[in-house]
């Protein structure tokens, strides 16, 4: 199966491919070896391989450049943790919305104008309480509510997070600075189906009477994955 898509290239070394493509591994991203393809051939630099597919699909009318640009713009500028934060903050201030969110997350976020790119995906909201702490992982790949929180961070897609969270969630939480008492139940959600999960963190103390926007500034991505908590009230000053 591998090696069937080699492209003939000129003037670009394999080294360029590696330095371009290895960012998911953390520190320096270097690959010391590669295993795809026939070593007798010069591997195609990854950027050119992508460009070749893209040109073909556009020329054949299967995709449009404008559509691709719109998707990139959406993830770079429109969707992201701020959307999820608004949902969480709304649930904190609006009891009826909170109940709808916990009953049918897909429907509740649709009320706020947030819809999925892919139909058929379900959203389930998980509420943290003094007795229960929820944390989300996808052990098999990288499932994530990207239409609500943006594309997932590399650590969420990484082997250490995926392998360890189901086995030793408290140790993982501690690495994120989140200590959970023995009396608190930790619920790990392995996101293996087309259901997506949003953690609703506990509302921080001393935030009575705050607006949704101000409360949302306390809710970051880690809190909505469940590896962290909402920021304390004092953090809102600089966040606005």
């Amino acid at each position: 199966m591998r090696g069937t898509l080699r492209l003939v290239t000129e003037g670009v070394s394999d080294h360029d491919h590696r330095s371009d493509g290895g960012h998911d591994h953390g520190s320096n991203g270097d690959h010391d070896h590669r295993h795809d393809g026939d070593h007798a051939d010069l591997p195609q630099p990854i950027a050119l391989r992508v460009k070749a597919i893209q040109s073909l699909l556009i020329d054949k009318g299967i995709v449009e450049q404008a559509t691709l640009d719109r998707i990139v713009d959406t993830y770079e500028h429109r969707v992201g943790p701020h959307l999820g934060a608004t949902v969480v903050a709304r649930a904190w201030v609006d009891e009826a919305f909170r109940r709808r969110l916990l009953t049918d997350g897909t429907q509740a976020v649709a009320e706020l104008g947030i819809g999925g790119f892919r139909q058929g995906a379900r959203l389930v909201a998980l509420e943290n309480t003094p007795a229960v702490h929820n944390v989300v992982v996808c052990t098999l790949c990288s499932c994530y509510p990207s239409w609500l929180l943006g594309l997932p961070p590399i650590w969420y897609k990484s082997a250490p997070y995926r392998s360890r969270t189901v086995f030793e969630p408290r140790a993982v939480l501690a690495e994120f600075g989140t200590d959970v008492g023995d009396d608190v139940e930790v619920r790990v959600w392995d996101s293996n189906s087309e259901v997506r999960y949003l953690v609703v963190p506990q509302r921080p103390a001393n935030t009575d009477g705050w607006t949704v926007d101000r409360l949302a500034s306390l809710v970051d991505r880690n809190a909505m994955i469940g590896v962290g908590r909402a920021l304390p009230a004092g953090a809102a000053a600089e966040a606005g």
Partner: protein
Amino acid sequence: MNGIHDIGGMHGFGHIMVEENEPVYHAEWEKGVQSMMAVMLSSGHFAVDQLRRNIERQDAVTYLSNSYYENWLHSLQQMVLNAGFVTADELANGHIDPASSAGNTGRATQWRPVPDLPAGPPAYGVNDRVRAKVRHPVEHTREPRYVRGRVGVVTHYYGGEPLPELAGEGVRQDVHLYRVRFEATELWGPDAHPNDALYIDLCENYLEPA
């Protein structure tokens, strides 16, 4: 399949590395891969399980050596080739072969946007005790190894979802989907924290009465 992607509970991958101020994309080519894949999936031509299936079928060393979007690129290439959108020659040459008829979408599945109701009533209800079947399918599956043979409790019934085993091959058959809770001690033994639990969504095909 029992692929390298099925890593829940494995040891040896080290600490979690968090990149500060991480950008949405790390290279221009990642934008192309991610957006093309988004179109392929949202257009209804492919199931997300086909994306996963192609990634899982790489050899283990390649899977681990590749960056995330390198794995996606591999899958994207397989998808457009298998669907007949492009030919291998066209990919190799980078331009359309006028003699080729590739590009018609006849070989791609048209996925309906929402799950169908599965045939027959659900076999389990909330609070039923179930065992995740011990099975080692060679095809794509979403029953990870670490739950196989373990007993849990159904906490929710969702309705229908395409069976991943078939969806990975581009075939749609919707089955009942359940949320199952496993105690950490059931999964990992007596050393697990007594106050930890694991929730996972499992197709009826993956379950048997316990």
